[in-house]
């Protein structure tokens, strides 16, 4: 029996010729990542154990993005704690406000994730880098601490589900609609403990931004990782962003998959996930009349340049519906700057949206757009759990940047083809 892409990367990093699902292995890490919420806990553990050295100062990345620019005194103290740790350990990839971005937009942009890498991050959406053909997965703070000290982590080798993507998506249908469709189909625990592996001719129609969005939400189906087959589009991105050595892994022809799904991309409609789970999906024509108070465009799911371009295309020259608050938060400084140069930021502001500095802010109900009791938001983020963006009785509808922008104009959830 052959191996899947994910299994091959794990085997290579464990120094083994072969691994099988369920096997417990210890593997070498190419990158260990943390943010301002998870790193303080990791550093505390690290110090408690009397550790005083990291395994490799170049293979650790710390990105304070959740409550930054510091939202209150406690958050400021947490950031100070990790800033000092990064300085003491001489961590090369510590990104301060000013060069910082949302971690999962920033890491690929900085060229820190490449095909064939094995990456852990103390953030569940670390699975995003699977878009580049890396095995990349979220862990907790203790794993981060152990990873920083030893350069290793333990893994249980996952089995996998294969998604064969076919044909070209319709206009205004993006990676977000595809992944919401898939999560709706297999449910929030449909891929629990397993890899989601994406391949097929349809990949040719998916930009890197689409793929980042899809890999990002693999965790929302419970998956350990989501991973895309590497093609020319991937390699072009890698060439542009990284000088790191990379290795392309393809599944063996006799690789065993638990399940195989064929997805006809041309049949996918703009899709919305209703409260309070990402698998509670409906196609746009079944949404009905849902009035909204807030629109959030951004995050590690949809805060990339391609996402902002789509939203701006719809909002340009139009006005946000009176009474609706539209908050745009680009993923990184670089994306922000590019958007500024292209005139996209002006389009947003002229339409009546506000544009924030890169931060996780509203996505986790942290700051910069927290919802009140009974309020509803359309959001391009990845989670619509109870209380995720604020009051436990607020509601979040997950959608693509196109649906979010169209909804901003009408004040209710709207098909981008109808504005």
């Amino acid at each position, binding site marked *: 029996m052959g191996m899947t892409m994910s299994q091959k990367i794990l085997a290579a990093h464990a120094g083994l010729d072969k691994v099988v699902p369920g096997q417990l292995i210890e593997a070498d890490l190419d990158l260990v990542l943390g943010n301002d919420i998870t790193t303080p806990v990791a550093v505390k553990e690290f110090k408690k154990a009397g550790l005083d050295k990291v395994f490799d100062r170049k293979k650790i990345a710390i990105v304070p993005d*959740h409550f930054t620019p510091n939202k209150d005194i406690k958050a400021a103290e947490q950031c100070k704690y990790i800033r000092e740790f990064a300085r003491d350990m001489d961590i090369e990839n510590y990104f301060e406000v000013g060069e910082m971005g949302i971690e999962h937009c920033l890491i690929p942009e900085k060229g820190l994730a490449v095909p064939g890498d094995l990456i852990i991050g103390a953030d569940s959406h670390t699975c995003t880098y699977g878009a580049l053909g890396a095995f990349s997965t979220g862990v907790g703070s203790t794993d981060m*601490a152990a990873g920083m000290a030893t350069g290793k982590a333990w893994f249980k080798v996952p089995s996998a589900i294969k998604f064969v993507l076919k044909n070209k998506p319709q206009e205004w249908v993006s990676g977000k609609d595809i992944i919401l469709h898939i999560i709706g189909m297999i449910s*929030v625990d449909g891929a*629990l403990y397993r890899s989601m592996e994406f391949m097929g001719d349809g990949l040719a129609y998916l930009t890197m931004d689409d793929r980042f969005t899809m890999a990002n939400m693999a965790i929302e189906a419970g998956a350990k990782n989501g991973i895309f087959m590497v093609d020319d589009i991937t390699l072009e991105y890698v060439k542009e962003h990284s000088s790191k050595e990379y290795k392309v892994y393809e599944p063996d022809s006799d690789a065993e998959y638990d399940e195989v799904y064929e997805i006809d991309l041309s049949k996918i409609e703009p899709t919305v996930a209703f409260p309070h789970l990402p698998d509670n999906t409906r196609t746009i024509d079944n949404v009905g009349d849902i009035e909204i108070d807030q629109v959030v465009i951004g995050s590690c799911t949809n805060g990339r340049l391609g996402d902002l371009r789509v939203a701006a295309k719809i909002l340009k020259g139009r006005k946000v519906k009176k009474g609706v608050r539209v908050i745009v938060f680009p993923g990184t400084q670089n994306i922000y700057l590019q958007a500024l140069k292209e005139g996209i930021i002006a389009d947003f502001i002229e339409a009546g949206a506000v544009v924030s500095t890169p931060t996780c802010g509203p996505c986790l*109900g942290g700051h910069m757009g927290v919802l009140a009791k009974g309020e509803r938001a359309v959001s391009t983020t990845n989670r619509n*759990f*109870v209380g995720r963006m604020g009051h436990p009785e607020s509601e979040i509808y997950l959608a693509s940047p196109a649906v979010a922008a169209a909804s901003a104009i009408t004040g209710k959830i709207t098909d981008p083809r109808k504005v």
Partner: protein
Amino acid sequence: MKAKGRVFRYNDNVDTDVIIPARYLNTSDPKELAKHCMEDIDKDFAQNVKAGDIIVAGKNFGCGSSREHAPLAIKASSVSCVIASTFARIFYRNSINIGLPILECDEAVQGSEAGDELEVDFDTGIIRNLTKGTTFKAQPFPEFMKKIMASDGLINYIKNKNQSG
């Protein structure tokens, strides 16, 4: 190792955002976190929970964010064990790594109600519902995880390993 306590019963897909809402994540002090544990789905949990009590829940417990604050908050609430039909992967990992005992056993979940008294033996995986007089069997931890738990978490496990070799 054994645990004994009253059941707090929850449904499927209890996510880390309700176990400990992000608005409280500007601290990582377990005692502070425990004050807000479960508050978005069970306002009175922090007040009512007693040392040794057991959380029993359905599928995919702990889904969502990787915040270790979630098992930390539960552990600091002096919960002795979480039993669920299945756990989300990162939550499972984090619980092992910080030394919060958790067991997967769908039958025990189906056979327990809020307030029941349970007794759990981690070495054998035997779960007894003392109120109903029923017995269930979960998979005990694999050897490797037992070692981590016995060292009281992954960090100590690594420290011990470094010292001995």
